[in-house]
């Protein structure tokens, strides 16, 4: 990087690659070479910028100019105008939708203004295939500090103090998980990175792995040191080829520099990482199912206890953390737990990455401090609802979560407040619905997903989710009667109560929460005599298990 005067950063995330960012990059390289600037201008393929709605993204540094929706044919103008003549290409700048003003700096865009990027700190900033760029920005400093200056307990203590909680969905305190795994005595322990991201619409883990793979490797090494493991596994779905390739490159480079392998930083600590590929089963994101899959067994969960921290991979104590959780670790070590804990709410510290999708203007990936309101995310960062339509609800927590309506928009987001609202944090998927969406259909959509993804081990997951889906289908086909709504509600609570693992315990949530908030939309499908559509309130006869 030293000799070059200008870096052209082209987004190499999956979203932008799908809209031909690789061709943009190739054209840029060819034209720069043709114009004779190859020595002073470098084209870098970065990770995801997050603003997928406006992709492909090209950013020019150090000019700090942010181009959006760049097509392969725009490469010529970027080089000839911006690079050669020093003039911004106005038509490629982002246009602020309300005032219709062009914005050229990333930090001035409403999409980025309220974001605080910790887990995504390097995404879009560095070339993920070059370990030196990661190191140049302080990479592997935290690992060095942890293993040369700190005891295992000190590392755990810092993570505990930071208040970091699992970003994969459960929200279990990370430091505590490390502590429990450390306390379980064993010669052999494992640390596993759960990269089996599966929520529909969520892609923060993929973006981190594609844009900043070393942050995960570094954090795994720190975690391994803390719990006393010398072997790590990244369980990643095979549908993430780019993330896999970047991880492989990163692991190779880290090994070459001695940052993975024997006696890291000259200490007694040795650690290495292997990849295991998942076949894309949603249930394999559940940690015991993930471990079964790693062992080559059928990907289905076990009854807990024993927890993986006691008996995990091949029966040894194992700590399973999510990608985004890991990505937070190096900054926590480097900048201290107080810094991290200064962000967020009382019980949920730091930031959280959300994937915005559905009826929202700025589809993409955003990282915000905990405690921000849904209104800020949807209307300020997300740019509101397209075509001037009215906001109806947002589904958080993916298929395991529930809907939050207008009245919940000002809730500060954290693990607990979302649970109180009948939804959950989940891995951070956020699907926005507008006035045109029918909520029974939305519930049906999610049930179809969980029904297909249930492993089948438990009766309620296998048959219960199927029957829930079929009942929703019966309702939307206009064939259901009031008694069916009663039965549906009862079954939803029963499946929630009786299922074996988190997948199917939460699978009925979309039904339960849409029934709670949009009962009229259910009623509208019912054709019972004496019960005109959409009128009156129906109280189910049987209230068993229906506390809500």
């Amino acid at each position: 990087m030293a000799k070059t005067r200008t870096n052209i950063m082209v987004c190499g995330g999956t979203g932008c690659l799908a809209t031909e960012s690789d061709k943009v990059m190739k054209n840029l390289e060819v034209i720069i070479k043709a114009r004779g600037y190859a020595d002073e201008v470098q084209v870098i393929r970065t990770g995801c910028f997050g603003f997928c709605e406006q992709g492909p993204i090209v950013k020019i540094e150090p000019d700090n100019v942010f181009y959006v929706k760049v097509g392969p044919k725009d490469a010529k103008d970027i080089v000839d105008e911006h690079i050669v003549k020093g003039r911004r290409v106005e038509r490629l700048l982002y246009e602020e939708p309300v005032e219709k003003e062009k914005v050229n700096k990333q930090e001035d865009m409403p999409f980025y203004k309220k974001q605080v990027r910790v887990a995504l700190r390097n995404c879009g900033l560095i070339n993920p295939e070059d370990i030196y760029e990661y190191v140049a920005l302080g990479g592997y400093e935290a690992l060095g500090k942890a293993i040369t200056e700190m005891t295992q307990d000190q590392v755990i203590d810092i993570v505990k103090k930071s208040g970091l909680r699992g970003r994969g969905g459960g929200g279990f305190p990370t430091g505590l998980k490390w502590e429990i795994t450390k306390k379980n005595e064993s010669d052999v322990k494992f640390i596993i990175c759960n990269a089996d991201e599966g929520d529909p619409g969520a892609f923060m883990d993929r973006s981190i792995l594609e844009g900043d793979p070393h942050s995960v490797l570094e954090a795994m090494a720190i975690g391994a040191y803390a719990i006393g493991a010398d072997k790590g596994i990244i369980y990643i779905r095979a549908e993430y080829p780019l993330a896999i390739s970047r991880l492989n490159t990163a692991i190779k480079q880290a090994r070459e520099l001695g940052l993975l392998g024997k006696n890291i930083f000259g200490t007694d600590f040795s650690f290495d990482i292997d990849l295991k590929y998942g076949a894309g089963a949603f249930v394999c994101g559940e940690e015991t199912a993930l471990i079964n899959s790693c062992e080559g067994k059928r990907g289905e969960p076990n009854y807990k206890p024993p927890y993986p921290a006691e008996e995990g991979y091949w029966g040894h104590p194992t700590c399973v953390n999510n990608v985004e959780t890991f990505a937070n670790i190096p900054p926590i070590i480097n900048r201290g737990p107080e810094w991290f804990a200064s962000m967020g709410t009382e019980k949920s510290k730091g930031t959280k990455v959300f994937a915005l999708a559905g009826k929202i203007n700025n589809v993409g990936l955003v990282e915000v401090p905990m405690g921000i309101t849904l209104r800020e995310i949807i209307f300020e960062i997300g740019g509101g609802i397209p075509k001037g339509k009215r906001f109806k609800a947002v589904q958080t927590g993916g298929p395991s979560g529930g809907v939050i309506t207008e009245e919940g928009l000002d809730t500060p987001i954290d693990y607990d407040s979302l649970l109180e609202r009948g939804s959950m944090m989940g891995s951070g998927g956020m699907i926005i619905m507008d006035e045109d969406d029918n909520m029974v259909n939305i519930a049906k959509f999610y049930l179809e997903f969980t029904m297909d993804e249930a492993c089948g081990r438990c009766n309620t997951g296998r048959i219960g989710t199927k029957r829930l889906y079929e009942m929703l289908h019966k309702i939307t086909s206009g064939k259901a009667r009031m008694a069916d709504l009663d039965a549906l509600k009862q079954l939803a609570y029963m499946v929630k109560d009786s299922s074996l693992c988190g997948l199917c315990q939460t699978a009925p949530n979309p039904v339960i929460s849409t029934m709670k908030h949009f009962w009229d939309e259910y009623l509208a499908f019912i054709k019972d005599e004496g019960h005109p559509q959409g009128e009156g309130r129906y109280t189910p006869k049987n209230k068993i298990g229906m506390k809500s």
Partner: protein
Amino acid sequence: MAGNEKKHEDKKMIHIRINDQELKVPEGITVVEAAHEAGVKIPTLCHLDLHDIKMVNQTASCRVCMVELVDASGNRNRLVPACVTKAHEGMAVRTDTIRAITARRMAVELLLSNHPNECFTCPKNLECELQSLAEELNVREIRWEGERMDYPKDLSSDAIVKDSNKCIYCRRCETMCNEVQTCGILSGIGRGFEAFVGPAFNIPMVESSCTYCGQCVQVCPTAALTEAYHVDKVWEAINDPDKHVIVQTAPAIRVALGELFGMEPGTIVTGKMVTALKRMGFDAVFDTDFGADLTIMEEASELIYRIQNNKTLPILTSCCPAWVKFIEHQFPELLEVPSTCKSPHIMFGTIAKTYYAEKNGIDPDNIVVVSIMPCIAKKAEAKRPELTKDEHNNVDIVVTTRELGAMIKEAGIEFVNLPESEYDRPLGETTGASVIFGTTGGVIEAAVRTAYEWMTGEELKNVEFEQLRGMDGFKKATVRVGDKDLRIGIASGLGNARELLEEIREGKDKYDAIEIMACPGGCIAGGGQPYHHGNYEIVKKRQEAIYQEDRNKKLRKSHENPEILKLYKEYLGEPFGEVAHRLLHTHFEERERI
């Protein structure tokens, strides 16, 4: 209860509360077990605890045993499966809340919503655990009409029928097949609603390495796995005036058949069974025990031959077809080790169609040999090409104990009140040695009784070898025979057999003779026996009855059977001689391992 207290002596006791009862229970027991001590029955379905054979199915998959775990604050109670949830100090559980009761009933309702409504014609009618649960939990309607599983029945093998539409995915068969029998044939296939248990890639059973031991059938709560049904063939043969239909009954049938008619487990019903078979119309009612005595003559001779000529030792018994198929698939490099003897009922079939046919002037082509077996693997064994290659089969039809029970009922015979009769002669003359073939340790004990007298030339006074008895799956014993110690290994259950074979392969332990039976406990616990429904005490009672039957016999050594001696004198010549070799011995072959 007394047994429980004894079992609990060494354990730390903890205090828990079930419904309104305070209990002191040993730490680590499950809520189901604790509730049982409090006189509270929590229904279970997938759960199966056969600790006698080291099998506990803990998949917690059926969700029929959900109970409410009371939270200290009282407002965050949750449901947990009682079969896998361990009791801990201060735990409070309610089994009687409407939330728990409804969840349990709905779990059964859900299973029924995906289950064929064909109880009337189902082979498990009135033996089905799902059916009993529906009654027990008061399921009165099934509110979920929807898609049901729709897979074709697997009728590919001669032994086992797999009807996946009736699979409730309890995984008992899988645990049995993988953990106890170590065959690894059955496992979960498919995902979500499509999930069921079958062989890898759902290949037909006949293409798998299944041994047909039938232990999966024994533990299946529904009719997803049953034996192939051959009753009609038997009736057809009996009703064919041109056929001379001979029936033979295996040793283990007589101590189990009574259970099918409500008699106490362990009741010996030999005489009633013979009467029933005669009334059903068989032309001759014989005993597989005759074949067992013959087997001992051959096997003991082979053992002595191998010892005296420094040939391959140990010798392994080959009476059990599931075990033979197991070694063919799993240990083909050890195929030199088993005795080449045919199994007793096959030997019997051979003698019936040669010696007996000639003696009585019957065309062997018109003889139909029916074997009543406690076993499903015998059905497949009877169809093995090398055992059917002559113009006539050695054995034509094999039916299980359960099928025999069904036939007796169908024939309108009031079994319990039948008078007793004797087997026909000559092939019904037997000794105590052959009766004990039905239990683990029995074949080797019978062989020792004969080998001892032949090797030492002395009379064996005490014929009962306690060191070879008991329900342990893996026994090692030494028997002093003259100036030689015979080292004996006994395994029942294929997992134990695997352990023993691995020892042999690695040369870890030296044995002279080994007995292996595929079913844990031996033929008394065979896949074709009346269902034990998870109660292994039944099997133990059958074992006691087998030894009782042995004690009831005047002759207790195979080589003292006068009809056997006559058979050799008139027809076979020397034991292990040329004719015997041609008729009574067979060979094994390497098979693929899938």
